[in-house]
Structure formats: structure tokens, C-alpha cells
């Protein structure tokens, strides 16, 4: 299946070319079909088939498991190996007959059975090694299959399994910096790009975000950072990633927009969370935090400047990101002094950041970014609104005013959002 973002852009371009008389309207369906549009139905069939095969696999396993422990060990092992070999055998037969949907589903079943076999053999022999190693072995088996065959379905499974592995090591066993995951992640990222698979790149970004969140939290605990410093660090990290996306765009990386969307969303969430943190939860800015935060901020600022020089960021984009980095960097130092004034200043800054993000989204014609920015703007306005009016009014009067205000706000924001989207669409088609 082709890149859905490309297909969407192609549809828009075709409409424009037909209007300009460059393309015969009779050919547009054929052009879209040759580009892969319409394979969505086949993709849905593949997904349903995959789910059906997985459910059949679980049905078989459940039946066997109910009677498993009563049979001799040699029979147990024969069932385990036989099922796994059968799944791969069926996958080979189906793939050779070009039934790729069913074939990859069977491949997924074979990989799933490999994991089940690791678990059951561990139970049969009471193997008491460090049990996340079993998940790692399973994930490596999935990754090998995904790379060698190659298979997008199994690659998705590898992302999930290895994500669970790093989660268990980081959270369950409190491994402070689980760097071995990055080696596997690197291989998965390369595989997703070689397969030209956009959802795989999204999985890669989400996996990296998960790894950064879990490991940064562990490191913060180890270095004795306060909750406030930890969240501030996350805000700096995601703002830096936002700047990095501009550099990636300058390098013509086709998924730079996805990186920008995720980092923008996470930055706006992290920055908002700062307002919810009690100033007492700031631990006095340990030296380790100051050094780390400064380094991250400098990297972010450098990337913002580089993106501006390479013209993937406007001056306002680079300036806004640098301002937000500086503001976040100094927040822990300022939050304790003049709490009310600092809070209102940063709230105004947050509103400005959300408005800028809306402008950025419409400028690059990215509806996802625009919608995320609007959501952030709405949430912050509501937060201020409820906070201000709740102290001024009591009881029924508050709810009445709040209700009227909400309805009015939603109408205004929705009209503004649609007007911006329409302006962006008109700009693209002209």
C-alpha cells in the first residue's frame, strides 16, 4: 500500500491539474489506481485475515493449554515444535502462491508461537533466568523474520515485543538507562524505511518516545530531580525534537512532518503540565539537571537556527522555539519567586505558543499540527477560564456562566479553525 500522505496530495494535485486542463478527467481514476489508491480495501481484508488467523492460533493454544500439563514431556515438545514448524510451512506455501495477506498472517502466527514456546519451555523446565531475556529472544526472532522475509506485519510485532522488553527492564527492573534497546530500535527503523512503510516509521517514533519517557524518568529518579525539573526536562526535550524536525525537513527526510507532529503534541502537553506542578515539587535545580537541560536547550536552539538558515523554518518559527526553550529552561528558577506573576506570564507564553503552532500548521499545510495546536489553545483557555471564574463566582452562577462561555468559545474556535483550514486548502489549489 502506498504512502497515504502521498495519495492524499496526489488527489489534491489531480483536481488542480484537471481544473487547469493539464489532465483529462477520464484518466484521473486510472492515475490514482496505478498509484495504489483503492488498495485500502485489500489492506482491510489483510488486517481482518491477520486478526482471524491470530484468533485461530489462540483458540488452538487455549485448547492445548487446558490439557497440556497432563501429557508426557516429549509429546509436549512435539506439539510446540510441530505447531511452530507448521505455521512457517503454511506461510511459505501461501507466500509462494502470492497470497501475501494470508502468508504474512501465518508468518505472524509462527513468530507468536516462537514466543509461546519460549514461555512454555521455560515453565516445563522451570528455567529461572532473568525472564525479560525471554521477551528479548522472542523480539529478536520477530525482528530477524521481519528483516529477512521481509514482512511489515511481523515488523509491527517486533516493535511491540521489543517495546515491552525495554518497558519491563526500565520500569519493572528499574534499569536506569536501557541503551541496548537503541541497537534493536536502529535495526527496526532501517527495516521500516527499507520497506517504505509509513506506519512503521510512526511505530518507530512512538517507540523512541516511549523509551525516552521511561528512561528519562528513571535517570531523573536516580539523579534526585524533583517532579517539576523532570517535567521541565521533558518540555525541553520535545521542543528540541521539534527543532530537529526542521533539520530533518532540510535534509529532505520524508517523515520529518511526523516527527514534528509528535514532538509538537508532546511539548504542548509537557509545557501545560508545568502549570499543574506544585512549586514545592521543584527540587532546587540540581547541577546534573542544569547541565543536562542547558545542553538539550543549546542543541534545540542550534537546530532551530539551522532549520531557519535552510529555510524549513520561518524566522518566527525559529524565534518562537528558541524563546520557548529559554522560557522552559528558566521556569524552575522563577517558579518559586513571585508565583502568581510568573504563572500568568507563562500562561500568556503558552497561549502565544499555541497560536504560533496554529500559524505553523497552516503555513506548512498540516491539518494534524493545526488541530493539535487548536486543542492546546482550547484546553489552556478553559483552564484559565475555570480557574478565574471559579474563584469569582460560586455554585449555580459559576456553572451557568461557565456553560454559556463554553458554548460561545467552542463556536468561535471552530469557525476560526474551519476558516484557516479553508484558506489553507484554497492556497494549495491555486
Amino acid at each position, binding site marked *: 500500500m502506498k504512502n497515504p500522505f502521498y495519495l492524499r496530495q496526489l488527489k489534491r494535485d489531480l483536481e488542480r491539474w484537471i481544473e487547469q486542463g493539464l489532465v483529462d478527467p477520464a484518466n484521473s481514476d486510472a492515475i490514482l489506481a496505478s498509484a495504489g489508491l483503492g488498495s485500502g480495501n485489500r489492506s482491510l481484508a489483510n488486517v481482518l485475515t491477520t486478526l482471524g488467523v491470530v484468533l485461530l492460533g489462540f483458540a488452538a493454544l487455549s485448547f492445548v493449554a*487446558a*490439557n*497440556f*500439563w*497432563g501429557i*508426557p*514431556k*516429549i509429546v509436549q*515438545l512435539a506439539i*510446540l*515444535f510441530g505447531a*511452530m*514448524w507448521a505455521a*512457517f510451512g503454511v*506461510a*511459505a506455501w501461501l*507466500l*509462494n502462491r502470492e497470497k501475501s495477506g494470508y502468508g504474512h498472517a501465518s*508468518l505472524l502466527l*509462527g513468530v507468536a508461537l*516462537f514466543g509461546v*514456546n*519460549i514461555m512454555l*519451555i*521455560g*515453565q*516445563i*523446565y*522451570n*528455567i*529461572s533466568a532473568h525472564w525479560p531475556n525471554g521477551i528479548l*529472544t522472542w523480539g529478536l*526472532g520477530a525482528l*530477524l*523474520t521481519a528483516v*529477512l*522475509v521481509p514482512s511489515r506485519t511481523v515488523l509491527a510485532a517486533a516493535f511491540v515485543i521489543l517495546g515491552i522488553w525495554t518497558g519491563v527492564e526500565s520500569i519493572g527492573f528499574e534499569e536506569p538507562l536501557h541503551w541496548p534497546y537503541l541497537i534493536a530500535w536502529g535495526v527496526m527503523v532501517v527495516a521500516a524505511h527499507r520497506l517504505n512503510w509509513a506506519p512503521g516509521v510512526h511505530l518507530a517514533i512512538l517507540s523512541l518516545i516511549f523509551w525516552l519517557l521511561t528512561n528519562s524518568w528513571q535517570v531523573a529518579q536516580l539523579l534526585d530531580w524533583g517532579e517539576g525539573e523532570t517535567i521541565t526536562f521533558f518540555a525541553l526535550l520535545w521542543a528540541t525534537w521539534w527543532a530537529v524536525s526542521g533539520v530533518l525537513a532540510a535534509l529532505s527526510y520524508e517523515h520529518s512532518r511526523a516527527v514534528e507532529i509528535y514532538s509538537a503534541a508532546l511539548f504542548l502537553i509537557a509545557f501545560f503540565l508545568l502549570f499543574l506542578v506544585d512549586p514545592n515539587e521543584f527540587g532546587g535545580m540540581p547541577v546534573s539537571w542544569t547541565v543536562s537541560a542547558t545542553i538539550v536547550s543549546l542543541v534545540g536552539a542550534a537546530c532551530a537556527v539551522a532549520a531557519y538558515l535552510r529555510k524549513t523554518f520561518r524566522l518566527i518559527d525559529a524565534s518562537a522555539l528558541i524563546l520557548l526553550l529559554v522560557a522552559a529552561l528558566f521556569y524552575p528558577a522563577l517558579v518559586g519567586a513571585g508565583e502568581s506573576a510568573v504563572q500568568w506570564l507563562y500562561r500568556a507564553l503558552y497561549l502565544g505558543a499555541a497560536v504560533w503552532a496554529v500559524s505553523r500548521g497552516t503555513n506548512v499545510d498540516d491539518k494534524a499540527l493545526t488541530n493539535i495546536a487548536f486543542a492546546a489553545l482550547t484546553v489552556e483557555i478553559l483552564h484559565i477560564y475555570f480557574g478565574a471564574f471559579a474563584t469569582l463566582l460560586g455554585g449555580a452562577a459559576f456553572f451557568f456562566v461557565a456553560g454559556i462561555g463554553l458554548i460561545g468559545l467552542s463556536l468561535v474556535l471552530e469557525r476560526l479553525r474551519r476558516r484557516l483550514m479553508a484558506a489553507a486548502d484554497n492556497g494549495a489549489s491555486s
Partner: protein
Amino acid sequence: MSTNTKLLLIVVLMTMVLGRMIFEKEWLLATGTEIVLKLEPRDPRSLFRGDYMRLTYEIDQLDGRLLSDFNDVAENDTIFVAGQSVDGYWTASSATPTHPRSEESVLRGRIERVRSKTPDCEDGTECEPELDNVTVRYGLDTFFVAEGTGRALEDRVAEAGLENVRVLVRVSKNGSSALKAMLINGEPVYENRLF
């Protein structure tokens, strides 16, 4: 490389990985040194949880004086417990952080819990805390039984008494262990056999 060759390579590698897990344990069961462990009462509730058995051994609790070779004892540390047969049961005689190559039967475990005590000094003040005992896990405390047979086994153990239950364990040269059999009044009620 054709698809068939790739899939054959994958499934052979997976089989080798699984086969290695099996071979290590089967070799241990076939060639390891056999020791007999004494069970301890676990708690007043059922010995069995559904269809797997939870066992507690006398050697799970080690006196702190056995760990004199440790500079610092912490949870999740690896521990090697050497022992010998006393009154028909294998009993711990020393514990070290590395494998004592001179000993014949050594069990490798992991320290699960560390308990300290603060003794009173001669002048009536409190002395520095010292190690009281540790709880060790050897990977022998859980094994699965056929569905529906757990309750019957529990009744047999309760009827016979823990003093008549013997757990046979095979130990390798590097300290790995595997549960070989459980005997009640000399009769095997569980045996870890391939056939």
C-alpha cells in the same frame, strides 16, 4: 535467497534457540549431581496455587554468618551456596559471591530479601546493624502439574507430613539446578522425565 530458504533458515534458528534451552536442562537432569532438599511449611494456606506447586525449602533462609565472604549483601545479588548431606538432606554450609570451585555440590541462587538486626552493645547503646539472614531463590520453588491434580497432591502431602516429602534436585558444575522428582513416603508423585 528464495522465500523458502529464508523461512527455513528462520525456523531452524528458532528451533536451535529453543533446542538449546531444552538441551541444557535435559543434560543437567541426566548428568548433574543429585541432592535431596528438605521442604519447609510455606504458609497456612494451600501449598498449591491452581495447577502449579509453590515450594519452600529449608535452604531458602540462610543465616547471616554463612555469608562472611560477602563484603556487601544486596537484594538481587547472585549467591553460590555450598552444602553437604546431613541426616539425608542437603544442608547449606557456606555461601559466597563467586563459585567455590573446590566444593562438589554448589547451588546458584539470587538473594531475594536481606534482613538486618541491630544488637545491643556492651555499654547498653545500639551497635552497628549486622546481617541477620537472607532469603534466597534457586528457581526451584515453582513447577507445574497436570490440570486438576493439584488438590489431590496437596492432600497427599498434608496426609504424609512434610517430613516424609523429599525433593530430588540435579545440580550442574556451574551451580544451575533442575527439579528432578518429588517423593512422598519414597514414592514418586512427580518426575521430570522426557518420556
